[in-house]
């Protein structure tokens, strides 16, 4: 089965991203496909490469990056939500004349149309949020 996932909360503050990650991992292990994970609201903060959690804790952004690399999962941060919250990729850095970018590997920034598309393309669409 093809799943679409929406993550609406930031890392560590809320369990949504953890639950979405564990769900995605379990689904893949059972032979399902993750069409896309779309990060919205504070969920875009899951895509920072600048997080430094304590060493004995899980590294939420890296964990997503690694899962995406291993299984070719499309991780998308909403551009409007990302702009509000200072999540920046190299393109956005140039476009908005910023002095840095902070997006982690295997994440990309794109529009809300990608969320709607995930809803249309996936067999099941699941929201992880508050």
């Amino acid at each position, binding site marked *: 089965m093809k799943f679409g996932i929406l993550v*609406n909360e930031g890392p560590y503050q809320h369990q949504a991203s953890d639950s979405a990650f564990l769900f995605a991992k379990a689904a893949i292990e059972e032979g399902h496909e993750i069409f896309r994970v779309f990060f919205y609201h504070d969920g875009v903060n899951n895509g920072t490469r600048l997080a430094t959690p304590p060493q004995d804790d899980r590294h939420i952004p890296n964990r997503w990056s690694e899962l995406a690399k291993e299984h070719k999962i499309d991780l998308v941060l909403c551009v409007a939500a990302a702009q509000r919250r200072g999540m920046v990729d190299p393109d956005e850095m140039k476009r908005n004349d910023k002095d840095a970018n902070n997006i982690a590997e295997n994440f990309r920034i794109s*529009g*809300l149309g990608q969320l709607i598309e995930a809803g249309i393309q996936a067999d099941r669409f699941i929201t992880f949020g508050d």
Partner: protein
Amino acid sequence: MEDELESGVVKKFLYINRRAPHGSIYAHEALEVVLIGAAFDQDVSLAFIDDGVYQLKKNQDTSDINTKNFSKTYPALEMYDVEKLYVDKESLEQRGLSEDDLMVDVKILTSDEMKKIITESEVILNF
């Protein structure tokens, strides 16, 4: 950027709005999804439940809290062919509101009727 799909697939989308319009960004950003989603020619419905019913309250004024008064967008949804707005009856009544307090035409549903709408939807986005 927002390439429309040419798949011709039309699904039943339901946006469930459960939160008060101000105090958090959920309602505002949910509305942004609805507006973008309208370009995809899907079968779209919006449900307003719990504090979400406040999102449709008339005469909202955010000037004293320095936030954008996005509530002006709800009456414009019709122009985007987003016309199916469902409001939970019990949620309205619990908050001392009636249909007259709302800024747009809606259909008031009992929780059983709302349950049916939710069950029949294919893509549900909770905000």
